[in-house]
């Protein structure tokens, strides 16, 4: 399989506190990779290192064959941060248009892209409203729409389903599945096990260590349990033991 993102031996510390310990991962085209772990485990730090917003103390990140950080590569990445990061005084459409222009979306495709991405998250009716009048869920959806605006080859989504109702959640997952089929690569972080079950490949993270990885089905089989939560607990325990030894 063609690797889109490779993270090799990445270490990262803040104020002498080790946040990431020897993180390795590969995200491939046609695949949804899930980073799963409790808050504070280091998921967002991994994302920031992938995006080039942070630089690893040790190890390297490569995307589409380019060593990160690299400004040009960002053109092919759709990014959605944990915070909604929207311009509150602008309307939904103006937010989408602003980012579309920063990505250099052509003028004749601009409206088409805006309508399409808004459609994915069911926001077409609300594009004219100012974001300050949006509900929390609407902001989350707009944020997701922005990450799709330039039709990226790689999607990096930090906790995309928080505050989104089950029906829309289903719709979004179907859309992500479609992108993967089209050959895009998707990296997603979550602490919700239902989301984890949707991924093709899972990385379980605890305190900056990757404790186990594999497809949801193979993980359940490996640890001989019937749900992912159990996998996480068991893997965590065995990891603790091996660390102590």
């Amino acid at each position, binding site marked *: 399989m063609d690797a889109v993102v490779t993270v090799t031996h990445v270490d990262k510390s803040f104020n002498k506190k080790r946040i990431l310990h020897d993180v390795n991962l590969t995200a491939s085209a046609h695949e949804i990779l899930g980073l799963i772990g409790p808050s504070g485990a280091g998921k967002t730090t991994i994302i920031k290192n992938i995006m080039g917003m942070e630089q690893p103390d040790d190890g390297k990140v490569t995307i589409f064959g380019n060593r990160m950080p690299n400004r040009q590569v960002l053109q092919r990445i759709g990014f959605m941060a944990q915070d909604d990061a929207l311009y509150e005084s602008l309307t939904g459409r103006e937010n989408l248009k*602003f980012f579309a*222009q920063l990505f250099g979306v052509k003028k004749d495709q601009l409206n088409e892209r805006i309508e399409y991405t808004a459609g994915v998250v069911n926001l077409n009716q609300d594009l004219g409203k100012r974001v300050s009048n949006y509900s929390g869920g609407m902001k989350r959806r707009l944020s997701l729409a922005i990450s799709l605006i330039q039709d990226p080859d790689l999607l990096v989504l930090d906790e995309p389903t928080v505050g989104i109702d089950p029906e829309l959640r289903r719709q979004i997952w179907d859309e992500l599945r479609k992108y993967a089929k089209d050959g895009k690569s998707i990296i997603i972080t979550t602490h919700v096990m239902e989301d984890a079950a949707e991924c093709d490949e899972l990385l379980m993270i605890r305190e900056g260590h990757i404790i186990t990885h594999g497809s949801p089905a193979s993980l359940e089989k490996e640890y001989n349990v019937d749900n992912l939560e159990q996998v996480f607990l068991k893997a965590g325990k065995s990891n603790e033991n091996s660390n102590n030894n």
Partner: protein
Amino acid sequence: MRILTITKRIFVEMFRDKRTLALMFVAPLFILSLMYFLFQSNTNTVADIGTYNVSSSLVKTIDNKHIKIHKMTSDVSAKKTIRDKDYAGFIKKTDGKLTVTYQNADQSKTAIIKKSVQMALIKVQMKQLVTATKKSKTGLIKMQAQLQQIKKQLPSTMSSQIPAPSAQKNMQKPTNLKLTQHYLYGKSDSSFFTTMLPVFLGFMVFFFVFLISGISLLNERNSRTLDRLLATPVKRSEIIYGYLTGYGAVAIIQTAVIVLFCIYVLSISILGSIWVVLLICFALAMVALSMGLFVSTFAASEFQMVQFIPIVVIPQIFFSGLIPVANMAGWLQVIAHIMPLYYGASALTDVIQKQASFSAVIPQFSAILAFLLVFIILNMIGMRKYRKV
């Protein structure tokens, strides 16, 4: 292209925020009008003084429109009277000695009294001199008459040899010196406000742009939109330039509004070219903007941004020409030269009051541009904190 996208966004955000708009465009006009009236009334100061045992002729000479005299009938303590009645001064004559006591709470009133008393004393002395001259003149005439009589009594041959007295002819009348005053800059009614205007124009543009741009980048950082911005292929420099153009344009509009207000509402004359004034203000706004953006990297909240005002903005007022920099101590002059507002205010004063052309203010203008360059570079480095490339 991306620069313009950012500029446009800043404009839209700005014009939707009515409070900030009011701060940028109405607040400066409000402050200027207030100062206009405050400094105008300053010329009508009247000092109350008490007098005791001062001759009425002297009192009359002291009296002018800036002095109000209260005659005391009994011998009272000067200090007590000043304290009780809130007089600005007290004049007392004892044994041919004139004693003036000042309240000295308001130095301008002290100065008025000092001047009036000195003027009065000079006038009194002049008067005495004039009467003395008159006396000697009448004496001289008498002597001449006597001389004439003696001359008549002498034999005629001798009298012809004695020249006729010509003293009367030679005694010239004192010529009256006529005073005509010319003002190189401004008019006779130029108030303190006229002098202050260029300084405050520069200061207002600097202050408001500094505050608003700094807070705006801070918000962008705190709402994480800056992270999102930097997750696009935008260059760090494009963000800085986008901000500079956006707020630079706002600053131009602000300056234009202030300048037009001064010309047409407060009817203050701007002697130099308005375009040069606008250009200097624009450059000054750019420096304020780049300083604001840079300083905002060290602030975690709007409140912390406001905390920079006493450190970064207020000291600049002192060095902007309100106090003549040339009279300052050497080390203070050095400080003045690292203040952007010093150059801005000096250039604006030259253009507005002394009709300087652009070429005359090029030195100050280039100093402003140098500040701008330094802060733009600092900002580019500062942005590295958020994205390494």
